């Protein structure tokens, strides 16, 4: 039994009385000590998937229309709000994309960490505060005992993201969801934050779901990869298998649009076009208008998931038939 198991997840957005599907039948699982990378362009549903896991869809235009999310053997959607709150922040935690806005500007960072701890642990303020210092030290904030009295605006983006990580780790969660944790940071800080997360994983055995649009980041940090396009996982495999044998033209496109430092390239190959908007109905494979390999069949028939190797699933008519 995997720690987190998402099965046939369906999310739709309510627009003008109709429900438009945005996430269509996404399934994946993550084990302890494992990092799953979810990659894709903006608008392909990867963040929504993470929000659904954390139960943050409530109160918005978004609806969970199907599928199951089981965590540690419990079906999350059948839990009462109180039971769910008890898990969130304790056994599962989330890191957000914008470190600039994910800390409350009016609280000292120490107080924010202390509050998270005391939400779940029976600790005195003093104990929780000591624990906060420990956590800040763990995420390598210099002079943690002094920094717990800082306000978020007194810290840099990288430091705030570390504070967010410290907060997420406050109760030793079994699962950490990181939604583009490094996108808003510059490259050197990006590396430090990713290293930090990897380091903490080896120490605590946390399962991580890392969401990114950067295949480079994914390649460096993840054990398993799921590539999403327009609400579906189009290719999923272990990181090693995926990068050894890229089998979906979209994954290839994503990889080709990354500059390679030691090659002298004149042009980067961007994927032409854009992700179709949710209200466009598109018969056949959702990627066919942008795909260089597309044939008539692609615009008529939606490819079923196809195993090109054990544990390497691809949704493409050409999967396993020559290179992409």
């Amino acid at each position, binding site marked *: 039994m995997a720690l987190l198991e998402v099965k046939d997840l369906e999310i739709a957005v309510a627009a003008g009385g109709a429900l438009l599907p945005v996430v269509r039948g996404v399934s994946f699982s993550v084990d302890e000590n494992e990092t799953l990378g979810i990659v894709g362009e903006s608008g392909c549903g990867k963040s929504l998937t993470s929000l659904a896991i954390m139960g943050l869809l409530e109160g918005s235009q978004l609806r969970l229309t199907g599928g199951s999310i089981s965590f540690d053997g419990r079906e999350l959607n059948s839990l009462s709000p109180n039971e769910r709150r008890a898990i969130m922040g304790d056994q599962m935690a989330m890191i957000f994309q914008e470190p600039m806005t*994910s800390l409350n500007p009016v609280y000292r960072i120490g107080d924010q960490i202390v509050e998270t701890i005391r939400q779940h642990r029976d600790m005195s303020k003093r104990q929780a505060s000591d624990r906060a210092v420990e956590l800040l030290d763990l995420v390598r904030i210099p002079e943690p005992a002094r920094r717990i009295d800082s306000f978020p605006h007194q810290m840099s983006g990288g430091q705030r993201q570390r504070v967010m990580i410290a907060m997420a780790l406050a109760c030793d969660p079994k699962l950490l969801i990181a939604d583009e944790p490094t996108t808003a940071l510059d490259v050197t800080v990006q590396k430090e934050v990713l290293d930090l997360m990897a380091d903490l994983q080896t120490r605590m055995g946390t399962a991580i779901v890392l969401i990114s649009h950067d295949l480079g980041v994914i390649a460096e940090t993840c054990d398993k990869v799921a590539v999403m396009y327009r609400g579906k996982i189009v290719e999923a495999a272990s990181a090693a298998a995926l990068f050894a044998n890229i089998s979906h033209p979209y994954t290839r496109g994503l990889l080709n649009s990354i500059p390679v430092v030691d090659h002298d390239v004149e042009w980067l190959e961007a994927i032409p076009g854009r992700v179709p908007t949710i209200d466009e109905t598109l018969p056949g494979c959702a990627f066919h208008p942008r795909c260089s390999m597309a044939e008539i069949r692609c615009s008529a028939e939606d490819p079923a998931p196809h195993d090109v190797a054990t544990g390497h699933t691809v949704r493409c008519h050409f999967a396993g038939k020559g290179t992409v």
Partner: protein
Amino acid sequence: MNMLRTFLAMFRGRKLATIGLIWLCIVGLAAIAAPLIAPFDPLEIDPVERLSEPGLPYLFGTDHFGRDSFSRAIYGARMAVIIGLGSVIVALVTGGLVGMLSAYFTRLGHVLMRGIDVLMAFPALLLALVLMTLLERSVTNTIIVIGIVYATTTARILFGMTLKLKGETFVDAAICSGAGHGSILFRHILPNLISPLLVQASFIFAFAQLQAAALDFLGLGLPPEVPSWGNMLSEERIYVTRAPWLLIFPGALIILSVFSMNLVGDAMRDSIDPRFKDDIAGV
């Protein structure tokens, strides 16, 4: 101490606002120390001395019952502060709660905010008059009525701001850390609303004075025996030609105080919300 310094820094380079602040301090002092400052009992009737001119010992003269106008004005300051503070508390607590809850719980908001819309359709004074006629004349009721009138605007403002804050990532982060609704509303969202609430409070305080004076003048506010600036105007209005000072002094007090509060409110809003700075530069 630190907060006091930040507060005083708002008035640097603003002469008029500083004068306003000083005037409000004087009014505040008079309100607190009314029994010490007032030379006579504000309720003591002395028919022999009725309608005497300003001078000694009656600084502001006496009214048609022979009561000392100066003492009544000092106790009137006390009433002004009580009405102001009371209305601010009622308005901010009820309006704030309605606004925040409406924004946070969307369905409840549909109902509550429509109610607020209905109340806002009435002109402020008319709404106060209607409510006042339903209730008995008393200090508490006046505070409640004025508070409700200004709760509507407070609710509107906080509704918008809470809606905006609710979408902030730190609220999502709080939900992810397992915080409940109460904790999110009052520990994560409310502290971010303190500065707009303070600005709102300063304006409600000022408008409450006008509203209270208007109600008193129309004979629907405080009971007639209560010394308030509005009641002084109301009772002595028929003597405007024989003893104009009976209206000039309380009238001037109301104008000065409201004007000062608006200046102080502007200064606070400018330093908290820089978008308005250019509109009223130099004030």
